[in-house]
């Protein structure tokens, strides 16, 4: 059974046909070839496939594609604006907050959602927010540092 859905993906309207049992992860990767959404555990444990759904971080492996009809999806491609990196992306580069990079898109989106609702998070709040994103390279400290730095950058930009 094909279902036609419309949703906003990184500020662009997308219209696709999908099936009831297709996950958002599969729709984004296999249909739309958004390969920045990484396939990890597919049981909602590792966070590699994190995307923003109406601004909130979700494991796209746990969301059925038809349920995003009429909603807003952001992947890491949606972070940079007018050819300029998001302050989080800049901070991740500057603070060496990545190693193999496989968790990075998911971590960036989790961090974006955090800073959107809590522009000046404490270290504890950052740790709490990141607890659904595994980084097997163990770059957690660098990731936390980068999020703190990005928070500062955003505040400076808004001044």
């Amino acid at each position: 059974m094909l279902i036609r859905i419309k949703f906003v993906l990184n500020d662009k309207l997308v219209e696709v046909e999908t099936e009831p049992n297709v996950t958002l992860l599969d729709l984004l990767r296999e249909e739309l070839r958004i390969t920045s959404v990484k396939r990890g555990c597919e049981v909602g444990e590792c966070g590699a496939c994190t995307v923003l759904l109406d601004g909130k971080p979700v494991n796209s492996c746990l969301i059925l594609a038809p349920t995003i009809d009429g909603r807003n999806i952001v992947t890491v491609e949606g972070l940079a604006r007018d050819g300029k990196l998001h302050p989080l992306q800049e901070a991740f580069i500057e603070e060496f907050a990545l190693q193999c990079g496989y968790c990075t898109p998911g971590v960036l989106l989790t961090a974006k959602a955090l800073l959107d609702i809590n522009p000046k998070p404490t270290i504890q709040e950052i740790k709490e927010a990141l607890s659904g994103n595994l980084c097997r390279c163990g770059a957690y400290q660098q990731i936390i540092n980068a999020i703190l730095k990005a928070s500062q950058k955003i505040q400076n930009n808004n001044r």
Partner: protein
Amino acid sequence: MNFHVIGKKTVRKDALAKVTGAEKYASDIYLPNMLHARVLKSPYAHARVKRIDTSKPEEMGAVVVTFKDVPDRLFCPRLVSTPEATYKDWRVLTDKPAFVGEPIAAVAAETEEEAQKALEMIEVEYEVLEPVFDPLESMSEGKPKIHEKIILNDREIKVENNIACRLELQEGDLDEAFRRSDIIIEREFKTSRGYHNQLEPKVAVVKPEADGGLTIWCTTQTIHNTRLLISEIFNIPVSKINVKKLALGGGFGSSIQTNIVVPIAVALALKARRPVRLAYTKEEDMHEHSSYQMIFRFKIGVTKDGKLTGGYMENIMDIGAHQVQAYPLLGTCAGWWVSLYKLQAVKYVGVAVYTNKIPSCAYRGYGNPQVTWAVETIMDELAEMLGIDPIEFRLMNYVGEGDLFWGQGPTVKSIIKSCGVEEILRRGAEIIDWKNRPRPGEQKGRFRRGVGMARGYHTSSAGAPVPSQVVDYSGAILKVNEDGTVDYITALIDQGGGTLEAHAKIIAEELGLPLKNVNIVSADTQTTIYDVCTHASRGVYAGGGAALNTARKVKEKILELASKVLNAYPHTLKIRPDEERGQAVIYVEGIPGKEITLGELASLARVKNWGTIAAIESYRPPACPPHFTGYFVEVLVDTETGIVKPLKVVIGADVGTVINPDLAEGQLHGGFVMGWSRAILEDLKYSKETGDVECRGFILDYKMPTAKDIPEEIKTFFVETYEPTGPFGAKGLGEGAQNPAIAAIANAIYNATGIRFYELPITPEKLLEKLREKEEKQKKHEIVQHLTKNG
């Protein structure tokens, strides 16, 4: 030393692709007209396929391969060792599965879903055989045979008592050494069985080419060994196979060998004559590889003034159902042990045993974290028995500069030329306030603080001055472009630690180039020369050595051509990076204007028909120098829940010259997080009933640390030494970054509770049980004392 780029904070070249989602991993490769594959795996830990019928899926149009369709040839998926050290017992697909998850057949269809449906239509009848899970039981008489015959050095050998291979070593007079000892300690240790959980599950995409060759994109730590193996299994000329280099979503040793998805996808692609993509799920990945589980028995002697005399080590390794690198691991485990502390006499007995479990392979440290955990526990215990400070005791006995070192096993020996052990231990002790640490077992109350330390090392590569049983060399190609940049072409894979970034700095340093002018270009087996594999912490040391040697050759050519243009002698010319012009400038010192940029020179060389400035070099490292680390860990033990939390971690390292300080620091952080996980959390448990892992491959039930589990403070420092055999004095780091972590954590837990653990991981359950036992003993002791006093 005065470097213009080495040791400086610079942005890593792959960071932009990684933060924008543009980086391509094997799992991101999709080809036109591609089929998708699924693999049928044994549900039994030990069985024989009596009948297999693939007619139904084939009628449906699916492409099916079984053990009948693949070459009947045993192979070893890892090609790092020489043939006399390579045991072959693998098949691409088998009719006698020896673990739950062993591939029997595979299917390719237009979609993954169709492939799965087709897979479910294959009819298989199994004869279920008795499995054996315990290594000690497996090696006893009369147990089910997991393998009858295997291949070593192209000869068939018989497997006796499920013993895969063994290694015994003896040096010096051990009896005499024990006679001279005042204390002889005997301990038994059992390690856990870990799962790498590199975040990227293993993938292979295989495209058959018109000339009968193949193009392969896959998860790997070695593109050249992948092509050699596929050539060996399928009898395709090696030159017709091209393996592409991609980013790797974590390795940690799990892709040193060619992953089984590669030959399976090859078999399907050859049959289908279409590209095939085979992507394992996380559950399948967890059924594909695990770490080795080991049982150690140690007997070590020491004199009362604190000099170690001799030691005996027995190592029984549960390797699972197949050999990836069990034999060389028997050698390195001996090496890890004897290269930690000086012993005048040693005896080692290593036995690798088959069991009906998921095959084991190297896992960051290749047995070193486990051996170091055991040895550093014993060193702590001996220091306490002798009444010597544990740090002083270690400094009295460690293997250091000028000593013979054979970390990579008995065939890989060299002399240590750089060593910062003493400074690591002294500085670390000061930062953690070692002198004021709690007294072991004296604390009361629910929360108990403990401070522990351990030291260790790992080899940088497996190089040596003479040939050994390990293949270890790298290669590089460098060419100067007409815009003054340099293309660096290497087969060496960056696991994520930033190895290639270090190479770029080494090249920039040697050629006087701005760092941005070194391009790390895409590569494959067709366009590169051989590199063995990214393992053994060899990337910066051995791969960097190749990059440096090649850069030196390029520099000679630059100076030779520049001497013609500048009318000066080549050996009087100098090169400096001119950041403003964004170029390397070749100049004559003291004569203003006598200069030319590298871009101008390369362009001129074209017009004058002097040719391209380029070089290609293969490089064998002359040693495998140890990089040293020291861990100081402060923990808090909750005696009501058994939960241990890290409070503060101090890690010191001697990696020779630090090429990339921030990335090196990242390795130490990552080393702690993984070490913490292996000390406290991770263990693959097997169900005796199903023969499967109890978590069934779901990481929901296989926990590992998140951001919430790291301590508030991780302090790292580097002791700078200069390794004369390394590129600009550098050594490796990736594995030494973790090796002593487990030991230091275990020693900290002892310091907090007075309890030693001889089995990993130290879970809250085990901790509570031991705490209760200890309390009861204490009570009994108090009662006895009370009775004696009043009786």
